[in-house]
Structure formats: structure tokens, C-alpha cells
């Protein structure tokens, strides 16, 4: 079954990817860098998820009849090889497995404006049970005429939800977590103005910022690579997002752990967020395991390619394919960024006050405002060695202690103070000045 290897949340993200690709292609399909000023504020994606039905609706330009006939709703023909430039969604298998996972009564509607300027509409009604029941080819779905949607876009309505979808959509926790995932994974699109609504509520993207000052400067470097002749551009940004924790006690701030680490972004979509695992290098050779001490660090690596097949993505698009060459070649550069932060957090333990003063002087700047720079700059701290203390502990008869306290000026002097004063007295007498 094509639906087995994908989670319900992934399905919904697949459908959002398709809408986002639509919006992106309307805006002229170009590399999704950070500072290109793309404005997605006229696009909206509405998702309604309830125990009875699932709906996703967008005004992102719609799917063309050709795309529907040739890729999205055919099984015999190639559905993976062709997709839009700089897309992440794959209208073929992604859409089918997503809707099949959701339920069995499906209606996909699309309204689009063709190259000659005509507005056209069609619908694809699918009854999965009937479809599975007929085993004679062709297995393609019927495409029928339809009334136009309000705006050019796609609407997918799924009814007769699977038991799993229905129970998940009646769980407020599932819906709240879905909203969190959308907010995180589409941060870069949301920050460009794209609006996504879940059951009527707008989703606000995570604002990822790095701190900057004369002494703290994030890295921002770009280079080109290629996979089987397909160019891939890579950009790495990283540095301090917040001062490291005051103590290394992990329960001090849970917020911290949730945001820090490496982010991997493929054609604008965050596919791995706040990663602290071996995937982004932690705990692999020459690279320590993530430790709470490193909190405060954020690194982001963007992979952008005209062909989504060149991106280091797993098939579920929810993680990085660590066997990808383009990714393996990027890892040493990521390691340099991580390492400079690791060594800074080690150093600052010896000069905490100075470090805190400098950290607090750094101000948060949005990623797009970070200037190009080939390495992270972090302050060099002068360690102030603290001499190891010696603890002295001895007992004397209390009457003798009281007499000594009296001789030192007060019969009520605490024992500890009597101990310190007598040591100082003896030190002056026997050792003299330091």
C-alpha cells in the first residue's frame, strides 16, 4: 500500500508543499534565497480538519489540466520525474498517497488560467473503494468539468475519513501539534507573507534571529555544488541566537532545547529543525554529542535546486538523506561553525562575567540582514583563573573558641569568622605579605 510509509502529519505537509509550490511558481520560480524580497502575501492556504472531513483550499494558481492528466492522477505514466522548477512538492505520488491516507471519498478541484489567458476548471472525483475494486487498467482517474473556484487554486475535500484520520482530527493535541509543525517548517514562507490557516486560526511562523555585535558576527557563506549535472546552491548561516544557559542544569529552560541546533532547509521548506543528532554531525567523529552547554546556537543550511531530486531529502521529506553527496560535502563546513561555538562555550566558563556582558550587548537581527562572512566571529575571552580553594575544618573546645572570639573583638563572633581571622593573623605573622 502506498500509504503505509507516511504519517498523517506528513500527508498534510505534502499537500501544503503542493500549494506552496503553486504560489512559488506564480511568483516566477526562482531560487529561494533569503534576501530576494519575494512577497507571498497574496497567497493563502486554508486547512480544515475535523472528525468528518478534511479540506485544503488555496489560491495559489491551481493545477493545470496537463499536470493533472500527465502526473497527478495517472499511475501508468511517469509521476516522479517531472515537477516544477524550485519546487519541493511532487504532484504525482505525494498527492495520491496523501489523500488515500486521509480517507476514501475524495474530490480534487482546480481552477487555473491557461497560457492563452482562458480560465479553466476541472474536478477529479475519487472513490477509493470503487477504484481499488476495479483491477482492469487503465487505473487513471476520471477528470470531469467543474464550476470555477473563487480564485485560481486547488481545493481538495476528503470525506469518509479513515479511522486514524478521524480520531486524530478530533484530538486537540494533534491539531495543536500540527499547527506547531506548520509554524516551524514553513517559517521562511510565512515570514515572506504567505498565510496558512488551520481550522480558521492563522499560523504564525517562527522568527529565527541571530545576535550580532562588534564581537559576535554570524557566519554567512554560499557555494555551488552539483548532483548528477544538476546545480545545487548551498548557503550556511549560523551563530549565537541567545546567550548560553546560566547554569548547565537542563531543566532551567525548556524553550532553549526546542529551538537550538541545526536547521536544514530544502527549497525553502525546513525539513529538519533544531537538530542535535548525528544527522547534523553531533556525536560523530571529531564532533561532540550535543550538550545543554551548547544551547543558544542556531545554524541553518539552505539547499536550493531547480530539480527537487537533487536535494538531500528522504522520500518522506521530513529528514535529510545522509547518504546524499551534496549533504556529505556540506558537513565539514557545518562542523567548523558548530566547533567555533563549542569552543566559545568552553572558554566562557573561565570568564563568565565578561562573556555575559558581551553577549548581552549583541542585538537580534533577522537572518536576511546578516552580511556575508566566511566564518563565525566570537569574542576572545581572557580567562581569569580562579585558584582552587582549600577547605580547613578543625575542632577546638568551645571555651577556648569563646576566649579567642573575645580576644578578636566580639564574644558573639561566628565560629567560621573566628577561624578565618585566626588564619589571617597567623599568616600575617608567619608568612607576611603575598
Amino acid at each position, binding site marked *: 500500500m502506498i500509504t503505509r510509509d507516511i504519517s498523517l502529519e506528513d500527508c498534510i505537509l505534502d499537500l501544503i508543499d503542493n500549494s506552496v509550490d503553486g504560489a512559488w511558481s506564480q511568483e516566477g520560480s526562482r531560487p529561494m534565497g533569503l534576501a530576494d524580497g519575494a512577497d507571498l502575501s497574496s497567497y493563502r492556504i486554508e486547512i480544515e480538519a475535523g*472528525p468528518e472531513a478534511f479540506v485544503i483550499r488555496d489560491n495559489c494558481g491551481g493545477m493545470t489540466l496537463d499536470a493533472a492528466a500527465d502526473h497527478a492522477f495517472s499511475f501508468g505514466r511517469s509521476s516522479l520525474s517531472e515537477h516544477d522548477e524550485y519546487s519541493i512538492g511532487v504532484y504525482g505520488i505525494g498527492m495520491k498517497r496523501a489523500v488515500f491516507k486521509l480517507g476514501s471519498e475524495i474530490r480534487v478541484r482546480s481552477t487555473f488560467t491557461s497560457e492563452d489567458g482562458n480560465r479553466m476548471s476541472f474536478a477529479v472525483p475519487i472513490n477509493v473503494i470503487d477504484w481499488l475494486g476495479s483491477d482492469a487498467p487503465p487505473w487513471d482517474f476520471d477528470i470531469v468539468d467543474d464550476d470555477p473556484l473563487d480564485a485560481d487554486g486547488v481545493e481538495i475535500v476528503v470525506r469518509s475519513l479513515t*479511522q*486514524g484520520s478521524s*480520531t*486524530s482530527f*478530533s*484530538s*486537540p*493535541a*494533534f491539531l*495543536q*501539534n500540527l*499547527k*506547531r509543525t506548520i509554524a516551524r517548517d514553513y517559517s521562511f514562507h510565512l515570514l515572506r507573507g504567505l498565510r496558512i490557516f488551520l481550522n480558521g486560526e492563522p499560523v*504564525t511562523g517562527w522568527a529565527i534571529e541571530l545576535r550580532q555585535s562588534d564581537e559576535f558576527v554570524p557566519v554567512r557563506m554560499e557555494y555551488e555544488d552539483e548532483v548528477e549535472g544538476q546545480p545545487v546552491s548551498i548557503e550556511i548561516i549560523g551563530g549565537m541566537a541567545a546567550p548560553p544557559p546560566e547554569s548547565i542544569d537542563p531543566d532551567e529552560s525548556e524553550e532553549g532545547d526546542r529551538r537550538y541546533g541545526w536547521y536544514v532547509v530544502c527549497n525553502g521548506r525546513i525539513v529538519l529543525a533544531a537538530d542535535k543528532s548525528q544527522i547534523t554531525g553531533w556525536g560523530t567523529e571529531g564532533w561532540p554529542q550535543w550538550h545543554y552547554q551548547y544551547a543558544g546556537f542556531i545554524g541553518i543550511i539552505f539547499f536550493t535546486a531547480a530539480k527537487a531530486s537533487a536535494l538531500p531529502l528522504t522520500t518522506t521529506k521530513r529528514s535529510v538523506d545522509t547518504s546524499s553527496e551534496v549533504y556529505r560535502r556540506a558537513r565539514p563546513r557545518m562542523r567548523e561553525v558548530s566547533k567555533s561555538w563549542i569552543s566559545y562555550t568552553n572558554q566562557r566558563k573561565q570568564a563568565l562575567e565578561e562573556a555575559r556582558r558581551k553577549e548581552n550587548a549583541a542585538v537580534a537581527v533577522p537572518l536576511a540582514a546578516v552580511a556575508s562572512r566566511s566564518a563565525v566571529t566570537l569574542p576572545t575571552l581572557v580567562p581569569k583563573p580562579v585558584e582552587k580553594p582549600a577547605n580547613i575544618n578543625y575542632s577546638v573546645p568551645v571555651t577556648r573558641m569563646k576566649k579567642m572570639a573575645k580576644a578578636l573583638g566580639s564574644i558573639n563572633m561566628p565560629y567560621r569568622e573566628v577561624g578565618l581571622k585566626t588564619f589571617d593573623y597567623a599568616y600575617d605573622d608567619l608568612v607576611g605579605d603575598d
Partner: protein
Amino acid sequence: MASFDVVNYSLRPSKSIQRQLVFEGVKKLQAQLDLDRLVYVGFGSIWFTDFVLAHKLLGVDDMVSIESNEVGYRRAVFNSPYATVRVRHGFSSAVLPSLYEDEIVRGRPWLVWLDYDKEFNADLKEDVVALVENAPTNSILLVTFNGNEMKYDKAPERPEHLKRLFGSVVPDDLPTRACKDDRMQETLADFSLQMMQSVAADLARPGGFVPAFRLIYRDVAPMVTVGGVLPARGAARIASEVVRAADWPCRPQKPIVAPHLTVREAASLQSRLPCVGRLERADVQALGFDLEDDQLEAFQAYYRHYPAYAQIVA
């Protein structure tokens, strides 16, 4: 000190109204769902007010009361109103699990009402989660807790506190103002219900959890009562229809704050009810006394459930 030594339960008019609304709601469910062999599980204290209602109004015979206090347990056994009430000594967290295997109540639908005085805390959550996970099919689950904002950490820390209590259902951007004053009880009611719903959905309980009860009332402290039905798979739709109907009494829009009236005041107001439209202050003045507008509104809304108290000199 145990709560029954502090408050005489029968003298709390808002509590009494709330309790009657809940039983009225359960009666409606009883008419539609298969609840003939309903079992009642609660904290009967030494008064057993809810147990008496369960027996008289709903016809429930088998009942279990949980009492953790040593002296309270002896007094509860002494005061037990019916032969079919069993008092179990211990904390709810220990007694409830033993009931899943209890020969008398096992496999029958339960009406469980965990009527606490304390705030919603980690122990209480554990009881609620275990019940959503394990209560027999077609059970009805209710929980009452203190909704006073001061019981939930200092104002700036409250959103974090609620996140620890209720988990994923609490939005990341919960504003502090949602945890203040009267808003706090609404917030607590919403999150506790969403949490129960999520627990049922996440473990794929066949009929899920149908939220049904959401009442806020105040005698001294503001209290929150929430709950729902854990229906059999086929009964979920029926349960939803019952609780969505316009006459469902257990989701009042406003908190129940009953005015303290003398028997004579209550009786003379009652003689003007029911009536079309709202009772006006002038009507009360015509009766020969006076009330604030909100007191009058509350009485008109709940006069059918307003308790009458009189002192008996034995």
C-alpha cells in the same frame, strides 16, 4: 483538616444547582444510551448528597464512595445512605484501578465524578488520564476542581504552569491575560476538556471522548466542573447529538453564582415564575423587597434548582 470539617456541603446553593444540572444532563444521556446498569463512583464524603441524587433520580443501585481520611472513612461508613453503597478507604489513585477488576462494577458503564476541592494538579491529571484510558464503554466522566487563579503559580508563570499540566493542547503563545480573573476558569475548563479529548483520540479509544459538561460555579472559591461521555463506537453520534441539543443543561454560558435568599424571598419570587421575558427589578420591589440585577437574573435562570434550607432543631 478534611473539607467536610470546614464546609457543610448542603449549604452551598451554587454547588447544589450545579449538581442538579449535571444529574439532569446524565438523565438525558440515560434516555438515549445504554446506561441501565449504571454504576456511580464518587467522593460521597459524610453527606452523600450526590449518591442520594444518583439513586433517586437515575435509579443507580451499585455505588462506590472513595474516602482517604481515617476518621472520615469511619464516619462515611456510618452515614452510608443505602445498602448498595460501598465505601472504599484510600486515595482515588489507588482505589480507582482496583475497580477495573471489581466483580460488581467491572464492564458496566460508570458515572464517575471526581469532585475535588483542590486545584487541577499532576495527581488529579493522573486520575483523569487513567479513567479516560480505562473506564468501561459508555462511562460518563466528571471532574470538579478549584479554578482560583492563585492556585496556579504567579501570573507571569501561569502559561508555563498550564503547559506543564495540560501538555500539547496549550498553544505556545497563550497570553498571560487568558490566565487572569474570570478568564482563568474558562481557560482551565477548555484545556482540561481538550486534554481528555486528546487522550481518548491518541489511544484511539473506539468511541473517543465526547465533551459534554462545562460548568463554572462559585460559592466561595470559583470551581470548574468538566467532563464527557466515553461512548461505545456506535454510540458516539447519539451522545454528540444529545449534548449538542439546545436544551442540554450542562454547558451554561455564564458562571453559576446563586444569590443567598431567605426562604420567604425565594418563595415569593418563585410565585412569579415561570414567566415570559425577564423579571425586572420593579417586579421584585412590587413584592416588597429588592435585589441586584445579576442576583435576579441568576435566580430566574436556576429557580427550578434553587435549594431551600431550613434549620431543624432536633
